[in-house]
């Protein structure tokens, strides 16, 4: 999770126009009011683009916090993936 978190913080900072430091593992759709359904779709597309993963509709419903996203990404074995 240590390798994925900084990259997630940057993605969130880009999408929500906030600073990376505002984003922690506990950040979730409940704590971040701007995290609506449209932003959620954009976030999922950004994950697919940045980490070269496929987010299924079932997973999409569950990835509603930074911690869940980080854990799921670790399971996908993307921690060593480099951005191109």
């Amino acid at each position, binding site marked *: 999770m240590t390798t994925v978190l900084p990259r997630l913080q940057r993605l969130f900072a880009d*999408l929500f*126009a906030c600073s990376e430091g505002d984003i922690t593992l506990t950040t979730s759709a409940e704590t971040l009011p701007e995290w609506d359904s449209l932003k959620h*779709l*954009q976030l999922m597309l*950004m994950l*697919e683009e940045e980490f070269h993963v496929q987010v299924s509709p079932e997973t*999409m419903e569950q990835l509603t916090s930074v911690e869940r996203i980080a854990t799921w990404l670790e399971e996908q074995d993307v921690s060593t993936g*480099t*951005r191109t």
Partner: protein
Amino acid sequence: MAYEQDFRQLSAQYLAQGQWDMAYGTLVDLWYQQPSLATAHYVLASYERLRQHVPLTPCRLALLRSFTVEPLVPLLQAAACAHGIALEVYVGAFNTYAQDILDPASALYRFAPDVVLLAVQTRDIVPEFWSGYTELTAEAHDAAISRTVDSLHTCITTLRSRSQAHLVVHTLETPALPSQGIFDQQSSNGQVGAIHEINAALRQLANQQRGVYVLDYDAVVARYGRIHWYDERKWLTTRLPISADCLVPMAQEWLRFLAPLTGRVCKALVVDLDNTLWGGVIGEDGMEGIQLGLEYPGAAYQALQRVILDLYQRGIILATCSKNNFDDAMEALEGHPGMLLRPQHFAAWRINWQDKVQNLREIAAELNIGIDALAFLDDNPVERAHIRADLPEVTVLPLPDDPMGYAAALQATPVFERLVLSDEDRERGRYYAEQRQRVELEQQATSLEDFYASLKQEVEIKLVDAASLTRVAQLTQKTNQFNTTTHRYSEQQISAMAESPEWDVYSVRVRDRFGDNGIVGVVIVHDGEDASDIDTFLLSCRVISRGVETSILSFLVERARTRQLRQVQGWFLPTKKNAPARDCYAEHHLKALAEQDGGTLWALDLVTQDISCPPWIRLTTCEGVLSQ
């Protein structure tokens, strides 16, 4: 990746220091380095902080759609921002494009768009052609085609009658795997063929209307691969049909239309030679040593030359700027068997050891075009960075490291896209080559009068007609320098003025002994009770200051006299670029009548004054006023 982080950090630094132009330039670099959703959001948030300091060309786009496009909007806005366009986007409600267009009070019309994009998918507008096709009867098949074409026809003509906005319409896409399998291609009533039939009708509809353009969505999907393009699960759950990887290509395709629609295009391409037009260094490797030909690796350079030659055929002016010994470079340009480009294709060259910034300035001056009309192609990233930093008006084209990617990179740039291609466009490269010969003659002539007489110029002034309409509108949109008022008109507006009894729109064609320059001028006149008002008077820079202006004014004077008017008048409205037209009215002895907002109204009293056509110009006009 480290490089990309540098651009982010760099842009943040420039922003913090208030170095707005540098911050903007760095955001552009960042976008070309890594066009992605993340970058798009970052670029847009950063641009918000500097937008009042770095104004871009504004454009209002209405996106009418049958599917989820929202994630594409920031990508398009970021791509547009990097291309110098500040894009405001209105997204129509889901699948309500027909209501939006048909209801005159809809939010679409209240938004007052400059451009309307109609993005409708096959599966939404004609679902029976997307799945279940084999169950269709012949009647149902025909009915589906006519229903769809009628619906598109209604949308296009209604929008055209209610709005001056340009309209870009997607073609309908064909399925990756037709219901009839491999037989579909040979079947007389194939599924793919049926969709193509609708697309053919759509192209015809667009050609019948002014300002309607077709974006071949089916071809875009095919270009990136039909199977790769779609994400069926996202479609089913979020109504977004396009996979995450293909969102950037979709936004880039839209930008290829927005660039010419907003005038963010270049007129000339300036190319480097060594390691750009051929592999290696001619001064060191010699004619036998450079890589250029049909075989790998020389084929990469020949492919790039092919693309450049295509641009020349489309009317893009070519110039070269290279650090080389002139004779070495000319030997290759003239004699290398692998060269597709030859000296006669180039309108200007600077092959020397001077700084390229200075060379580019000189090329723009020699071609008589603005420095912002130049695009610069060079394999050397240091030269590219140098031009970007010191001549930010020039469009520096991105090139990949691998020469095999050069041709595709040049083809991908939106700066040479044109929505229509007139005959003048196709001939422009030749005109500019002939211009070089004219300059040589001018240098030989003993007096200016001699030179003018030796040119044997003919000026032909005609009322605008169907054949010249596109060119006339294009000239009002593109001419910046010799243009008294810089009024921009669309084809629809020109056409409306031509039909109105109060307005006359004239095209001006100029020929000389070196060839036909084509339509190079426009005059739009509005007659009042006693004065004839010149709404627009513009000329392409390649014909000015040889008496052509005087011959046109002499026609306007004669024309006003036959209409019993007492005065010819016209505003000069100054812009950053129209200094070449500033003194025209004063030089022809018009008097300043009034001033307003920096502009001056000039007038000629027909009772006491006259303007006659220079003796060295043969003038032909539609009103039969002839002079020799």
